[in-house]
């Protein structure tokens, strides 16, 4: 056998040995496309005020003023002046408020809300569609182009059905009776996602106990975050219960702390409340005069608190008390400038802060209206004297809400301050390719 015949075998062996011994470089990692987050200052759009309340069952005249659904005693007030936008109006500027007083009927009470800036993604944590409750969602488009909004309802069992798409024409409103979409939701949260510049959203939450009004209020979009404070607008008693409502879009473990005027109060037995994704959780607030709830969560949550004010119900209705309710939205502790327009009525500020600070509120000219110290982890109520139509502007880290009461009639509403500047939008752009849509 010639030696040359061994060459291929030797070469194969050498190759196998070389490959097994040598440490060959692995594949290089791909370089992803350069993605950039770009902050954009959108052109400010007018704020949307939802307009007057509507009687859920319609204005039924029974001949007996105690049983009439509607009422002639209605006062609608809004400031500053705006352009008509459907039933409501569009207010150019950084702030706006509407408050309505209905003296009797099904929706008797005081209902107010800050006019909201159009937004693409907002949570309204309020309302119910169970028997005796009505939830009316008002979407307002103050822009020149129509906007599509996707409305998703969430109840105690989680998200309810698919999103409803509502197209809102330029400079118009769309009102949705949510009980017509899904009835018997005892605790409601509404997620509104809109394209473009977004829509303004407000929810009219009306309750009726038999023939007796059980409270009507406008709910505004709440802040979502992992560290929130909800000021409780009024005293909670057995007759006038209060509720904290939570919803976590992706689920969250939430730690709740209840603050009183003299610091933290014991509340729930467990420290951590687990909120299922998309499910609405209602927690009854303990009785107390002046309270706030601090919410710390490991994922974003949206929250709001409802308090009620009880008054004697008309006789022969079988109900002891008529109620008015007020929703107060959760706020993040932020130093951004926020403002609220002051309506007429008995005004007070409920404020709480995570750190010791001062609650300083000025008017539009910079004159100090309120300047009170605020200890960490406590709640304070400050009476305010201000002209209707004037503005309260705060920049401190405290969470605060303006409560407006008609003590004589037993009516209450709260107004949460709104940011005075349009926040920058973050747009993430990645260069890419396009070969068609599947």
């Amino acid at each position: 056998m010639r030696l040359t015949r061994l060459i291929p075998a030797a070469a194969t062996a050498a190759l196998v040995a070389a490959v097994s011994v040598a440490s060959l470089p692995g594949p290089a990692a791909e370089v992803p496309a350069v993605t950039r987050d770009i902050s954009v200052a959108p052109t400010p759009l007018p704020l949307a005020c939802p307009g007057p309340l509507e009687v859920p069952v319609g204005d039924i005249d029974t001949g007996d003023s105690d049983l009439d659904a509607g009422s002639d005693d209605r006062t609608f007030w809004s400031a500053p002046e705006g352009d008509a936008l459907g039933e409501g109006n569009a207010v150019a500027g950084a702030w706006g408020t509407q408050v309505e007083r209905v003296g009797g009927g099904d929706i008797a009470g005081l209902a107010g809300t800050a006019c909201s800036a159009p937004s693409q993604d907002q949570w309204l944590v309020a309302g119910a569609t169970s028997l005796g409750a009505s939830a009316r969602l008002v979407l307002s488009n103050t822009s020149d182009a129509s906007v599509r909004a996707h409305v998703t309802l969430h109840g105690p069992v989680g998200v309810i059905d698919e999103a409803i798409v509502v197209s809102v024409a330029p400079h118009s409103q769309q009102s949705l009776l949510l009980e017509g979409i899904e009835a018997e939701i005892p605790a409601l949260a509404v997620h509104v996602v809109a394209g473009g510049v977004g829509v303004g959203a407000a929810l009219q939450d009306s309750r009726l106990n038999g023939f007796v009004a059980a409270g009507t209020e406008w709910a505004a979009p709440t802040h979502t975050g992992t560290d929130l404070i909800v000021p409780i607008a009024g005293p909670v008693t057995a007759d006038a219960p209060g509720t904290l409502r939570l919803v976590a879009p992706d689920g969250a473990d939430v730690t709740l702390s209840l603050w009183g005027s003299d610091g933290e109060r014991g509340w729930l037995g467990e420290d951590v409340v687990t909120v299922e994704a998309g499910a609405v959780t209602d927690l009854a607030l303990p009785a107390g005069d002046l309270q706030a709830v601090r919410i710390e969560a490991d994922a974003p949550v949206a929250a709001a608190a409802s308090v009620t004010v009880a008054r004697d119900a008309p006789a022969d209705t079988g109900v002891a008390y008529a109620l008015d309710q007020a929703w107060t939205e959760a706020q993040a502790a932020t130093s951004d400038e926020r403002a609220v327009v002051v309506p007429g009525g008995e005004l007070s500020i409920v404020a709480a802060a995570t750190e010791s600070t001062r609650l300083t509120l000025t008017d539009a000219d910079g004159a100090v209206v309120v300047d009170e110290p605020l200890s960490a982890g406590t709640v304070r109520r400050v009476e305010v004297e201000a002209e209707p139509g004037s503005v309260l502007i705060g920049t401190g880290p405290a969470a605060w809400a303006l409560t407006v009461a008609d003590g004589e009639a037993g009516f209450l509403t709260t107004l949460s301050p709104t940011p005075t500047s349009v926040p920058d939008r973050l747009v993430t752009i990645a260069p890419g390719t396009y070969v068609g849509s599947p």
Partner: protein
Amino acid sequence: MSLARLTVRAVVVSDGQSGRLAAVLDALAAQDPAPDHVDVVLAPDAPDVVAPASLRATLIRADITNFSHGVDTAVAASPGQAGEMLWLLHDDSAPLPGALAALTATARKRHRAEVIGAAQVRWDDPSRLVSLGTTTTRTGARRVTLVDEDDVNQGQYDARDDVLAVSMAGALVRRETWHRLEGLDPAYRGWGDSLDFCRRVWRSGGDVVVVPRARIRHAQESLYAMRGGREGSRRDTYVERRGAEWFHALVYAPWWAVPFLVIAALASSLWRAVTRVVRNDARMTAAELAVPARVVASLGRLFGARRRLTSSAGRGRRARAAEAALLATPRQVRHDVRVRQWGEYDTWRAASAPSDVVRGELELSRRRMRRALAATAVLLAAAAAVLHGDWILGILRGQMLVGDALGVTDAALGDLWDRGVGGWSEQGLGAPAIDGGLTALLVPLALVPGGLAVGLGLLLALAPLWAGLAAWATAGAVTRSVTFRVLAALVYGLLPPFIVAVGDGRLGGVLVHILLPLALLGILRAGGWHRGERVGAGEHFPAHPPRSSSAGMAGAVALALCVIASPLLMISALVGLAVLAGVSPGRRGTFVAIGVPTLVVGLPGVIAAVSQGVATADAWSVIAREPGPSAPSDRSVFDLVLSPWDGIDGVPSLIATVAAALVPVVLVAAALAVLGGRRWKLSLAGIAMVATGVAVAVAQAATVLSPDAGAGTGAANGWAGPGLTVAALGVLLATGAGLDGAWLVGRGATRVAVRVGAASMTLAVAVGVVGYGAALAWPGREDAATVALSSRDVVPLVAALEQEPPARQRVLVLEEGGEQDGDAPGEVTAAVLAYDGTDIVSTAGELVSGDRAAARTSGDAVVGLATLDDAVARLLGGESGAGQELAQWGIGVVVAVPGSASLEDSLAQAGDLALLGSSDRGTSWRILSDTGTVARAWLDTDGGAEPLAMGRSGGGVDVGSGGTAIVAVADDEAWTATLDGEPLVSVEDELGRVAFEVPRAGYLHVEYDDTTHRVWWWLGAATLVWAALGAVPLRARGFKEARA
């Protein structure tokens, strides 16, 4: 019959360059009757010659310039006698006995015969004819012989007498005729002067007669360029002879036809040069191309030659009538061409014809092979149909294949060509390219009816079939075993990394896998290393198959195309060819020629790499670039080969296991096959290919490529496929060579052992193939292919229309990221499209670090899509003025793709957009520009903008005033502009676009003019065409010129 005695004066002229003069004189002495006088005219420096004593020879020393001059000298030295005849003899033409007697007999019979020629026979074999009279065509540009060269003289031409012309060597010429016609025309420089002289004889009223029985041995030393003891060949005198033929035509043509004949000479030479290229005959190609120059050079002598013809013979109709009947008939011409050009082929075929027994065996093998091939093709086609049958159906329905890695595949032929020739890539906002990218490969695919979408679609969909057929052909060159060929074709055609590459649309890797076997086949055949069919007891027929230059050139084309598809292969291909040239001295030229196309198509890349520094990462990234679509792959090279089964989830585990064992089993079989050491050189070459392939694959995969869609877009790492293809072919070669003849090896127990081993390994591979096939065809298999079918229109029609010339607007396509795309929610993917969909297939602007173009050394970054990010974000975020910024880059339409509702809403709010319409391809908005229309290029003036009518990489318009010409592409030095033909100065543009200062009104023209690129492109194209012509299998049918 004249009773006067004929006196014959034999004139032998010699310049002393022939060694046959003595033999000629001896032959003269042997004549009976002998010539009356013999004059031997010798050039002054010719060696002395001793004439036989019986010959009354007169030696004349004279300073002769040519044969005719020599004859004149001899004639002048002796007084003329009435009726004397001159017997003209060259110093290499010796009359056979009886020649003179036969000639003089005819001279006596034929009074009017003024030239009596003899039959020319081979010097060394008088039974073979060289010439027995010649004629020419009506034009006169082709000499037609009247006998087949080397025909055996059996007296079959003995009846021949009148011919148009005879060779002057050995011809009797009447002395007065010689005088009257002033001898041979020196203008012919010795070639074709006999024909001219004889034609003049006919025209002047004489006859030219050939005497077949008078035979002259003629060595034709001039023709074979052997004078002076040189070792020449007929090829050496081709230019002179061909030039003389054309000169002859020019002399005999009417004056007005002369320019046309010169043009015809040029055209004929070019055509003949092409045929020489086809025959891979570089030397004769050069000779053919030299002919026109020779014709032109002879024009100076034309006037004299035409005057000599007119004065001595006449040009009128009567003069022509005499010779008309003797000119070659078309049939004679056809016969002449056939005999001269195909005679060699017939000779070869006759010589190599197999015996009847062998012929029968060959026919049997052929039938067996054909059946096996058909079965293999059906299996591979079925596999392709199972894998991607939906693609084929979709393509037939008019759809196209698309993919993130592939882009759209519906590029127009014109766009492809422009991209290839021009070198401007439309990726991102435009970038210069270092070469034509894949366009050279795509243009043929675009010629398929239905366009590139169909061509490319069928290439990909049926890729296993194409690759398998190529492997079948190559395996057949290595061994003639049917089983081996079938298994090799199946394994290679369904090789796991290849199937992955097809599914991902990695076009470069797919093309290499299909073409590289053909390159290897060509190289094997060029080296003569392929196997003839097995006949009888196992011997091959033919035993030593002829080496084929044509196959080599076909391999060269395939190799060059592979290098286009995967440039990293160039280095190993050239090194491999150099080694082959080194170890096979006889075929050095062939292997060098095979490497030329590869070198030419690869050289622009090498130059670009070197200009990025010799040993830098940038240089390497250029060398290892992938010109076509690319996609990242995080699998290691060995993973890809040994466990590529990510793609076959959902297959029962037994089948998956068998399938996964295929490649290891094949490798073990290969290792066992090379152990025997049969055909060890080929085996070693195969092992070297495996090593090279693995190295190439590892290196390619470890390289980050240039981003496909321009600066800032995602950049993949290289695909190991081409290297693995090389390795797979190496395994094929080593195994085939190692197994060649193994069936017959040894005796007794050894033979049984070898046969059992071979059979069991074959069975194992076959089981692996079946298992793998079953896994691929398993209905529940999860298809990992990322290529999909799509309608050919990608963006809405309203947007696509704006992309057309003259405006050639770009379209901004926005897509909302979703988690299903792997993007972060809320992320917006922005694509800027110059065509209907992202075209990655044809664009290849190579970028190196810092987003610099590899084709340039200026160091400037190419402006990428990132420059638009702000504007896009502001457009979406509701800030005004963003549309203007987009329009500055020629973006005229914004499209929100279907399913991006919130983007649609955002865009609906934007102030500088106007809704164009909504369709199932998306919603489109026109960008409202302050200056009116949006265009790819325009002239910025004080009053607004004048758009240019733009083609792909250039355009123009009549402008009414001066201003700044803007081309909305990333700035590059190769953009030029002219105003009424005068070049304009480029100015700096703050956005990084191409801008020129236009001083006044006039016709403004802008163009991308990259001369270097164009030169390389045409050079590459010419080389490929040359190699493709050389691949036409005409080698064996060469001219007889090739024989000597």
